[in-house]
């Protein structure tokens, strides 16, 4: 998948992260997920998750996040 959108609602913390991983891994390398995450923890968690996993946070304007899947695992 080249592009996907996901409204995670109020989901946060590990519940959000484990499903976010699944969503991003369904993309082709370089593909983009448009995520909506309203949990207040997402402001810090999403950038931290991108640093940990190597995916690129293209844009972050809470609650909207554009995450680009890294080119190689």
């Amino acid at each position, binding site marked *: 998948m080249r592009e996907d959108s996901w409204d995670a609602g109020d989901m946060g*913390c*590990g*519940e959000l*992260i*484990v*499903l*976010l*991983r*699944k969503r991003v891994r369904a993309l082709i390398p370089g593909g983009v997920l448009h995520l909506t995450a309203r949990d207040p923890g997402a402001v810090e*968690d999403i950038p931290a*998750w991108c640093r*940990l*996993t190597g995916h690129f946070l293209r844009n972050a304007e809470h609650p909207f996040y554009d995450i680009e899947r890294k080119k190689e695992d």
Partner: protein
Amino acid sequence: MAGKLCVSLTNAKNDTDKATVAFVIANAAVGSDQETLVFLSTEGVRLAVEGYADDIHETGFAPLKELMANFVEAGGTIFVCSPCFKKRGLDENTLVKGAKIVGGAKLVEFLASGAPCVSY
């Protein structure tokens, strides 16, 4: 995977809040590409029995059964303390998917490789 993390859990229905949050954190770890181990010991081993966690649903969290299933599906490992399991007379033929009964050496091996551990 980038790193390792162990989540040690010693509670089940005696403290469903701790049991739930342990798996939420484990999901955060495995979802962040960490090699993640949940180590169930003492009362926590009850969670490894199929069906036991089905009615655990803390307010504000996903049902525990769902958290455990997502954890295993994402590649997480569940180790179950053998003497704790045996002491409670539980049936090793009814383990949840992804759970494995182990002795202390397996936990020590994982931690000795440099994995940090958070306990609930």
